């Protein structure tokens, strides 16, 4: 078994009203960053897991997202898998 660091990004679906993103876009506009067309705000989760392989780690994360971490009605998710460095494991 190896340790893996999962990085999971949960993002509101494109086209879905994201009032928090809109508020941030408007605030950026007030700082004259008018090049910003859209802001969407999601969640970033780090999970440290044990798994036999990166594929197994990813499959586990996929199931977790479908069952709990993301709402299938409103959110999409993306998963990155990295093998955790030894020092990161002990930290």
């Amino acid at each position, binding site marked *: 078994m190896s340790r893996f660091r999962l990085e999971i990004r949960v993002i509101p679906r494109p086209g879905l009203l994201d009032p*928090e993103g809109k*508020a941030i876009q408007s605030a950026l506009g007030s700082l004259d960053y008018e090049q910003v067309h859209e802001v969407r705000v999601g969640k970033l989760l780090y999970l440290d897991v044990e798994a036999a392989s990166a594929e197994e780690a990813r499959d586990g994360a996929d199931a977790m997202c479908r069952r709990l971490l993301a709402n299938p*009605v409103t959110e999409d998710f993306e998963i990155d898998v990295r093998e955790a460095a030894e020092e990161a494991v002990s930290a």
Partner: protein
Amino acid sequence: MRVAIVTFPGSNCDYDLYKCVQLVGGKPEFRWHRDAELGDVDVVMLPGGFSYGDYLRAGAIATMSPIMDAVKAFAGSGGPVLGICNGFQSLCESGLLPGALLRNRSLLFAGQDVLLRVENTSSIFTQEYEAGQILRMPIAHAEGNYHADDETLDLLEGEGRVLFRYTDTEGEAVDSANPNGSARSIAGILNEAGNVMGLMPHPERAVEPILGSVDGLSVFKSLLSHLAPLGAV
């Protein structure tokens, strides 16, 4: 009418519901989120509040509680389940009701009275209302912005499963009377089988004149009327 009221860590309307059920002559009993059994009850109610601190998404973690397996089984066998506010969010998260409740479009917590139009009086939760009746009830939420895809919304409307809509004093569902941005001004819906209702407004906080409105009482009276012929009152 024996009613199980489920308390999650962070529920804060459980005692309001308890009092309200007593007020209409029912017998309330609390159930804890860790309980595995509902016991011998006629109705299950999920109260408002901030279960598990609204972590992850409002109502999401509550759906993982042991008691929710029993609630799903109860609903699956046709038992009436009422979810108010955070309870509505949990019913959507658990898949017992379609759609989801997003952040209010204002981004603000909305604590105010709203007006609602009763859209369907044939449900077991609304049969004591009159069609088109305008009700006053409080809301108190930050995530009450009902969302579902157009197909689901059309289905809900086509099957008479939109039970309450936010309206103005004329009973018109205008945008300015929509306190949270809900799709088609939807405030409360019914599941396909007709035994699970969720709504964001608080009928249990509108049951005595001293509270400013008694318009919520008929939700509970409707359940009584439904259960009385079944000998459960």
